[in-house]
C-alpha cells in the first residue's frame, strides 16, 4: 500500500513537475511553433517525458533501497542481539535477586529465632543473677549466724570454766568437811579409848563415843560421796569445756567455709551481671542485623523492580526494532517477493513480562501477525522470568 501510495505520489509529483516545467516549454514551443503545433503532440511529448521520468525515479528508488537495506539490516540485527542480551541480563538479575530475597528471608527468620533465643537466655541469666544475689544474701546471713555461734561458743566456754571453778570451790568445802569428819572420828576414838580405860564406869561413855564416831564416819562417807559427785561434775564440766573447744573449732571452720561460699557466690553474681550486659549487647547487635536485613530486602525489591523496568525497556526496544525491521522487510518484500527469510527475530524469545506499557501500537499498522508470535512464544527463559518476577494484576495479555 505504501508503495502504491508512493507511486501515485510520485506520479503527482511528476505531473506537477512536468506541469511546472513544461508549461514554460509549451509557451516556448508555442513561441517556436507559434500555436500551430497540435495539442495532441504536446500531450504525447508530455506522456513520454512523464514515462521516462517515472521509470528513472523507480529505478533510482530501487537502487537506493538496495543500497540502504544491507547496513540497516545489520544494524537491526545488532540491536536485536543487544536487546536479547539486555533481556537475558535483566532476567538473570531478577533470578539472582529472587535467590537473594530467599536468602534474606531465611536470614530474617534465623535472626528472629536468634532474637527469641537471646531473649530466653537473657531472662534465664537474669533469673540466675537474682538467684545468685539471693544466695549471696543467704550465705551472708549464714556467715553472720556462724560467727554469732562462735561468739556464743566463747561465752559458753567461759560459763563452763566458771562451773569448773565453782565445782573446785565446792570440792574444797567438801575437803574441809572431810577433815572435820576425820578429826571428829579421832576424837571419838580417843573418847572410846578413855571410856575403855574407865572400865565399867566408862561403859555409857563408850556408847556415846561410838555414836559420835558413827556420825563422824557417816559424815566422812557423805563427804566422800559428795566429793565423788563433785569429782564427776568436774570431770563432766572439763569434758564439756573440751567439747566446747571442738564445737568452737567446727564453728570457725563453718565460718571460714561460709566466707569462701560467700566470695564464690559474689563472683557468680558478678559474672551473671556481666553475662546479662553481654547478652544485652548481643541483642542490640542482632537488632541492628535485623534492620540491615530489612534494608537488604528493600534494596532487593528495588533491584527486582529495576530489572522489571529494564525488561520493559528492552521490550520497547524490541518493538522499535521490529517496526524498523518490518519496514525494511516490507520494502524488500515489495521488490523481492518470496525472500522473507529474515523474520527469525520475530521468533526470538522475548520477555513478555513488560508488555503492559503498550509500546507496540506502531506494529499493528503493518499487520504482520507478529503480536501473536511474540505473546505466544514463551521460551523457558521467559517462563523463568515470570516465575522470578510475579506479574501484576493489571497485566494485559496480548495473546489474542
Amino acid at each position, binding site marked *: 500500500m505504501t508503495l502504491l501510495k508512493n507511486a501515485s505520489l510520485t506520479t503527482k509529483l511528476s505531473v506537477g513537475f512536468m506541469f511546472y516545467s513544461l508549461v514554460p516549454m509549451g509557451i516556448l514551443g508555442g513561441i517556436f511553433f507559434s500555436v500551430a503545433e497540435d495539442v495532441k503532440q504536446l500531450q504525447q511529448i508530455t506522456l513520454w517525458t512523464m514515462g521516462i521520468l517515472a521509470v528513472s525515479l523507480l529505478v533510482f528508488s530501487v537502487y537506493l533501497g538496495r543500497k540502504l537495506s544491507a547496513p540497516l539490516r545489520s544494524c537491526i540485527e545488532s540491536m536485536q542481539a543487544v536487546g536479547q542480551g539486555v533481556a537475558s541480563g535483566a532476567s538473570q538479575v531478577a533470578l539472582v535477586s529472587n535467590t537473594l530475597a530467599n536468602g534474606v528471608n531465611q536470614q530474617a527468620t534465623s535472626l528472629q529465632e536468634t532474637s527469641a533465643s537471646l531473649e530466653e537466655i537473657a531472662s534465664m541469666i537474669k533469673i540466675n543473677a537474682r538467684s545468685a544475689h539471693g544466695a549471696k544474701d543467704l550465705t551472708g546471713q549464714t556467715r553472720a549466724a556462724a560467727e554469732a555461734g562462735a561468739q556464743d561458743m566463747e561465752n559458753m566456754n567461759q560459763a563452763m570454766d566458771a562451773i569448773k571453778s565453782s565445782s573446785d570451790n565446792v570440792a574444797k568445802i567438801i575437803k574441809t568437811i*572431810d*577433815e572435820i569428819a*576425820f*578429826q571428829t*572420828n*579421832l576424837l571419838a*576414838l*580417843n573418847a*572410846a*579409848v578413855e571410856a*575403855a*580405860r574407865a572400865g565399867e564406869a566408862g561403859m555409857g561413855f*563408850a556408847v556415846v*563415843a*561410838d555414836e559420835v*564416831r558413827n556420825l563422824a564416819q557417816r559424815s566422812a562417807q557423805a563427804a566422800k560421796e559428795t566429793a565423788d559427785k563433785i569429782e564427776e561434775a568436774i570431770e563432766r564440766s572439763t569434758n564439756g569445756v573440751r567439747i566446747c573447744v571442738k564445737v568452737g573449732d567446727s564453728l570457725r571452720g563453718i565460718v571460714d567455709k561460709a566466707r569462701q561460699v560467700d566470695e564464690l557466690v559474689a563472683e557468680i553474681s558478678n559474672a551473671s551481671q556481666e553475662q546479662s550486659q553481654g547478652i544485652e549487647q548481643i541483642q542490640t547487635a542482632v537488632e541492628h542485623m535485623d534492620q540491615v536485613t530489612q534494608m537488604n530486602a528493600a534494596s532487593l525489591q528495588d533491584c527486582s523492580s529495576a530489572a522489571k523496568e529494564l525488561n520493559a525497556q528492552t521490550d520497547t526496544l524490541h518493538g522499535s526494532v521490529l517496526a524498523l525491521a518490518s519496514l525494511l522487510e516490507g520494502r524488500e518484500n515489495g521488490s523481492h517477493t518470496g525472500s522473507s527469510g529474515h523474520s527469525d527475530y520475530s521468533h526470538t524469545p522475548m520477555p513478555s513480562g513488560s508488555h503492559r506499557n503498550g509500546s507496540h501500537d506502531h506494529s499493528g499498522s503493518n499487520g504482520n501477525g507478529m503480536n501473536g508470535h511474540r505473546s505466544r512464544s514463551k521460551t523457558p527463559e521467559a517462563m523463568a522470568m515470570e516465575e522470578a518476577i510475579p506479574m501484576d494484576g493489571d497485566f494485559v495479555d496480548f495473546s489474542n
Partner: protein
Amino acid sequence: MNATPASSSSPSVQQKYLTFTLSAESYGIPVLKVREIIQLLEITPVPQSPSYMRGIINLRGKVLPVVDLHRKFGLHPSEFTEQTCIVIVQIEGSAPGTLKQMGILVDNIEEVLGIQASQVEEPPDFGHAISSENLLGVAKVQDSIKILLDIDKVLAG
C-alpha cells in the same frame, strides 16, 4: 594389867583393841596401852638414831619419840596421807615399874574393837616378817584377820 595376854582370861570376856592398818594389813593393840590418838604432827628427825626412829614430836610441851612401824617391821615404806595418825602408847620403861610414852606411826586408824578370847589364836611360827614373840595372837574378825601386837615387846627392841 601387865604383859599377860588377854587370852589367858575366860573365853567369854572380851578385850578391847585399837585396830589400825599398816600397808593394807590390819593390826590391833590393847586399848589400855593407848594414851591418845593424834593427827600427824611435824616430826623432827634425831641424828644418829635407828632408821625406824622417825624423830621426835612436841605434844603439848612433852617431847615424845615416834617410831615408824613400817621400818620396824621391814614393810614397804608408805607416804604420809591425810589418814596417817600417830598413836601415843604407854609402855614399860627400861627400868622396871616405870612407864614411858612413845608415838607410833600408823597408816589409818580403824576402830576400838572388842574381841572375844575365842576369836584369838596362837601366832604361827612362820610366814611373817614379824617374829612371833612380838605377837599376842591372831584375831579372826568376820572374814579378815587382825594381828594383835605385844606393843611392849615391839618397842623394846
